[in-house]
């Protein structure tokens, strides 16, 4: 009897520890990020760091203005949205509203399989195929540009957007479809005036999570964005998004130096951005479930 009770308590402890592990990791990461990035703000004013227009971390004197990096991240993320929203939402609509059950059973796993391709493979694809193509089409000195990164990131975020948007469409009760058809609405009217509005915030959540995927992606942008840390003027210029800067420079930055701390500060800001994205997505998706009467 005693052994049995000991076992029960042991199981309970093991699972409690496992459940809290990710919380510990999250807190640990945040603590390290904050601790390692604070020293840079003793040297550079916070606003000058964020809005500074030149990033010359290895010059003498060094300049730590990350506006070009932030703008690069925003540009390629917005570019990715332009690619992944029609692709992802369009395929979700097709899967949910037009494809038969059998077609959907085959197609949805294939779209989701796209998410399992390693990002370095996407990057490779961008370098080998997209780069020469863009160079030729737009007569550029280099095909490694914000546009290149946007396209590849957009394709990479498509499975996320498609999968979550499809779930949102699936949550729309069939009763709404029937009600709409019953008053003589066509398929198209039902889709645009009942189903998409009902699933709207779910689709918005999908797009935000897709953006969060794109802005945090590192390997691909490191390979195809071009890496030039200047403020971008067009999509046809090379850019250096925040993730690429961290990945490319962390190896060279002397540990404990200003450059090192500045990179941590970039990571912290990136973390805050993706955190905000995820919180917004969570809030929207909750209101969506309430709106459809699917519990709070």
């Amino acid at each position, binding site marked *: 009897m005693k052994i049995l009770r000991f076992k029960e308590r042991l199981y309970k402890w093991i699972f409690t520890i496992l459940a809290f592990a990710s919380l510990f990791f999250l807190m640990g990461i945040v603590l390290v990020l904050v601790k390692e990035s604070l020293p840079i703000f003793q040297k550079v004013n916070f606003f000058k760091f964020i809005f500074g227009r030149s990033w010359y971390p290895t010059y003498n004197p060094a300049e730590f203005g990350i506006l070009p990096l932030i703008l690069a991240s925003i540009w390629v993320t917005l570019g990715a949205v332009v690619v992944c929203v029609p692709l992802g939402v369009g395929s979700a609509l097709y899967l949910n509203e037009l494809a038969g059950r059998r077609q959907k059973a085959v197609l949805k796993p294939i779209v989701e399989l796209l998410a399992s391709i390693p990002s370095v493979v996407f990057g490779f694809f961008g370098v080998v195929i997209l780069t020469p193509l863009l160079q030729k089409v737009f007569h550029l000195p280099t095909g490694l540009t914000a546009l290149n990164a946007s396209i590849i990131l957009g394709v990479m975020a498509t499975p996320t957007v498609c999968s979550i948007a499809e779930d949102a469409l699936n949550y729309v009760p069939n*009763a709404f479809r029937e009600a*709409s*058809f*019953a*008053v*003589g*609405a066509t398929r198209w*009217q039902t889709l645009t*005036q009942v189903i998409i509005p009902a699933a709207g915030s779910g689709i918005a959540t999908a797009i935000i999570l897709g953006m969060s995927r794109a802005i945090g992606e590192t390997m691909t942008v490191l390979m195809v964005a071009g890496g030039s840390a200047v403020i971008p003027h067009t999509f046809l210029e090379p850019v250096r998004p925040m993730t690429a800067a961290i990945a490319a420079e962390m190896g060279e930055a002397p540990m404990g130096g200003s450059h090192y701390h500045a990179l941590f500060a970039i990571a912290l800001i990136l973390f805050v951005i993706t955190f905000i994205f995820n919180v917004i997505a969570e809030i929207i998706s909750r209101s969506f479930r309430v709106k459809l009467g699917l519990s709070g």
Partner: protein
Amino acid sequence: MDNKIKMQAKNVDFFYGKNQALKNVNLNVYANKVTAMIGPSGCGKSTFIRLFNRMNELVAHTTLKGKILLDDLDINSPLVDAVDIRKRVGMVFQKPNPFPKTIFENISYGLKVNGIKDKAFIEQKVEDSLKKAVIWAEVKDRLNDSALKLSGGQQQRLCIARCLAVETEVILFDEPCASLDPISTAKIEELILELKKDYSIVIVTHNMQQAARVSDYTGFFLLGELIEFGKTQDIFTAPKDKKTEAYITGRFG
């Protein structure tokens, strides 16, 4: 039976995949009368009513044999669009299913999808429909509130109003009171009796008392077959078939 026939089912067989849900059903729906369909769960009555506005088309792998006529028009003819049929044959569902829109938009939706744009006309029509469905007094001050805030009984009357706005000729009620309390049920029944002046009505119900109260004609379904069809009074007082009698007297079902 000297009444005008509004809709007619002729030798109807219906299949879900290979399962036969309806077997050779023949039934008339008379104009400006209430036709009730009763029977135990799974007898095919809900499947049957959904044939009258081609709602079963939305379910995959179904087959229909036989004919459904609306004023002599074969509604399943390849030349006929289901959308046009549903503009003439409306439906109220078992579970109230208002759209997650405002009360006003719920009613105006049917008008808008039918191409009506005149704002004044739409406003008048919304008011008329809500009045006809006896819900106007309860909602007139909050037409811009979400329809999902209404109670179940109110939602169902709103769904009836939504159907009325389209000005159909027939209204199909698929167990409209299944999820409602007795007071809401009484209101809906009263409404059905009022509506038959202008519409031909078909109602599926598992509640025999309800069929007796509201209908002029009753069909009794069992295992996909229409066992007996006739005037409600006759079915309930002098059923010809033993199975009908057994069901009506509560021996099964």
